């Protein structure tokens, strides 16, 4: 087990390296650099910056150096000092801006995964055990809709209905009095009270997919001889289903975490924009629109790393759940 985990962690390193390169390329892509954008920002306020000042700015941030050197400086800053560079729109270090939002994004995704499991588990089992029943058909149909409708459209429609029938709209992740408050038990409770609805909407697509996979897997398992043996030996029906076949069919629950996480984080960005959630979404969007590239690149990097780590955790969980995986 230990060697498996070690191997997986080693395999993660090239992925993380690639992710950092992609994030850096995105920083470099727009025409001009940090200094020209900075000066353009100052010029918009009426300040005129001399050529010398521009050059010294470039020298300060090492913008005259080759791209590879810049990359290693950026990465070096992140790895040694946790320094992600500076956001030129906010005139603040990137790390001061992103962490709370990153945590909220993670919490949103995590709660979303938990809700996905909670919902998909009973429905998947029901659909498989009562195959072709009316309930099965209804859930299958709902599943098709769940996969086809993006979360942000669901959110828009829900918000409109809320507005129409209740006259107010749930948005944000905190009540007014907690928005700027320090973390406390009351604030966490307030967060959870706001978090479940966006998390549920965000998880719809994944839930539908998981129900489909669980149903198909469980159907395969239920036809196997050992289930018949269990029934023949007089095991109660619930035990004959829940004890072994469901456990076998559960693998996708853990393994899909790997691909659900990227799509959840992707979806959360648009959903946050619509529902006005203080996660990475709106900040990333604004930083991209204003070409605040260190901020944008750092967020893309951190989100990618978080996803890769989440995938790693899901792989390890899977290996714990099913020992056969380790030897593949």
């Amino acid at each position, binding site marked *: 087990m230990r060697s498996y985990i070690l191997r997986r962690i080693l395999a993660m390193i*090239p*992925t993380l390296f*690639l*992710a950092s390169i*992609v*994030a850096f390329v*995105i920083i470099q*892509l*727009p*025409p001009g650099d940090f200094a020209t954008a900075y000066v353009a920002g100052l010029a918009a306020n009426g300040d005129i910056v001399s050529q010398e000042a521009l050059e010294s700015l470039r020298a300060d941030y090492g913008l005259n150096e080759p791209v590879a050197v810049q990359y290693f400086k950026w990465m070096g800053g992140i790895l040694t000092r946790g320094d992600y560079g500076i956001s030129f729109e906010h005139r603040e270090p990137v790390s001061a801006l992103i962490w709370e939002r990153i945590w909220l994004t993670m919490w949103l995704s995590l709660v979303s995964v938990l809700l996905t499991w909670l919902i998909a588990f009973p429905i998947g089992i029901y659909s498989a055990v009562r195959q072709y029943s009316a309930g099965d058909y209804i859930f299958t149909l709902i599943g*098709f*809709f769940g*996969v*086809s*409708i*993006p979360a*942000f*459209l669901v959110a*828009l*429609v829900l*918000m*409109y209905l809320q*507005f*129409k029938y209740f006259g107010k*709209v749930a*948005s944000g992740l905190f009540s007014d009095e907690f928005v700027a408050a320090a973390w406390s038990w009351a604030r966490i409770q307030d967060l959870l009270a706001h978090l479940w609805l966006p998390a549920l909407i965000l998880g719809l697509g994944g839930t539908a997919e998981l129900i489909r996979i669980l149903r198909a897997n469980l159907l395969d398992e239920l036809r196997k001889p050992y289930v018949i043996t269990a029934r023949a030996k007089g095991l109660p029906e619930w035990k004959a289903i829940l004890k072994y076949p469901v456990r076998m069919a559960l693998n996708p629950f853990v393994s899909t975490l*790997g*691909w659900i*996480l*990227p*799509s959840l*984080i*992707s*979806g959360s*960005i*648009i959903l946050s*924009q*619509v529902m006005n959630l203080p996660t990475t979404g709106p900040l*990333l*969007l604004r930083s*991209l*629109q204003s*070409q605040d590239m260190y901020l*944008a*690149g750092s*967020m*893309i990097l951190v*989100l*990618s790393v978080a*996803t*890769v780590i989440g*995938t790693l955790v899901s792989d390890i969980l899977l290996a714990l759940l099913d020992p056969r995986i380790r030897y593949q």
Partner: protein
Amino acid sequence: MTTEAPQSIPTPRVEAPREVEAQVFVAPQWKLVWWKFRKHKMAMVSGVILILIYLVALFADFLAPFDPGLTNSTYLYVPPQSIHADFGEGKPGVYVYGVTSTVDPVALRREFTIDPSQVIPLKFWGRGWEYKLLGIFKTNLHLFGPADPAQPAYLLGADRLGRDLLSRMIMGTRISMSIGLVGVFFSLVLGIFLGGISGYYGGSWDQLIQRLIDFLRSIPSIPLWMGLAAAMPLQWPAQRVYFAITVILSLIGWTSLARVVRGRFLSLREEDFVTAARLDGASQPRIIFRHMLPAFTSHIIASITLAIPGMILSETSLSFLGLGLREPVVSWGVLLQDAQDIRSIATAPWLLIPAIAVVVSVLALNFLGDGLRDAADPYTR
């Protein structure tokens, strides 16, 4: 000989199914696929819906009653005018009621009331704005529209600039439905090329390409797309933006197609007919394109169909965020951008109608792809 089989066993089979079976044995592959596909009712219905949607895209300007770019400052945010019909003697036939606008003195907001005294008749084969049918014939003929083109007939309401939402939605069908096709085409080229190398040659190439696919699938796609889309210069012309967006979408979209192609290549590589072709001295391109590709075209078509909705949704999402296509280009995502916050939805809920078009086409493509996937391998029972 089989005639020696014991006669005592009663055979419930009659002759008719055997005839059907004989038909099955001689039928070409495409026929088997069609027979199996026909059984999937939802897929059949979806196929018809999709044909209709693409017809709408083809004849969009003929179907749109108004010029989609035409603004009208009198009719900002006009609610949908419902259609009435009265075919009596001297009656207008199909018509809508006019609207009168008043400015609410307190809220300073323009409000519209339906005015039953004004009747605006609608006319089939009416004349309206000028366009080129199929890009060739210059005409101003439209399927329907107000008999007097200057009168308002906003069947789905108007947007913030007083443009007709119905016309814009019809015109948006073109971009939204084609971007999926073009994007999937790029993904397909990449997917077949890289997946083919991966599956046919195997070894270290396979390892490298598989790691690349793993990597692309493990990072969240929307932030990546957003980053790439944001790097597009603002002064780019609409066509280049459209092209760039499709390329950006297919940069990640190819991975799932490559997986399918690789899996098929791996399983076919060991088949007898491939070995036979190789021993016969067929060249590698001939083995790949003449012998192997036809054996899994149906699988590829099914995967393509299932990949298009993802592309459509991605374009919608990007444009919705303001990072994708931009005005004056009209796509469903661009239209939904107007419905981005609760304030605009509260004043003009009809701005959400393009979402229905998105959902219907995506659902239809998913059902169609599902049916095609089931039918792709007609030899399994």
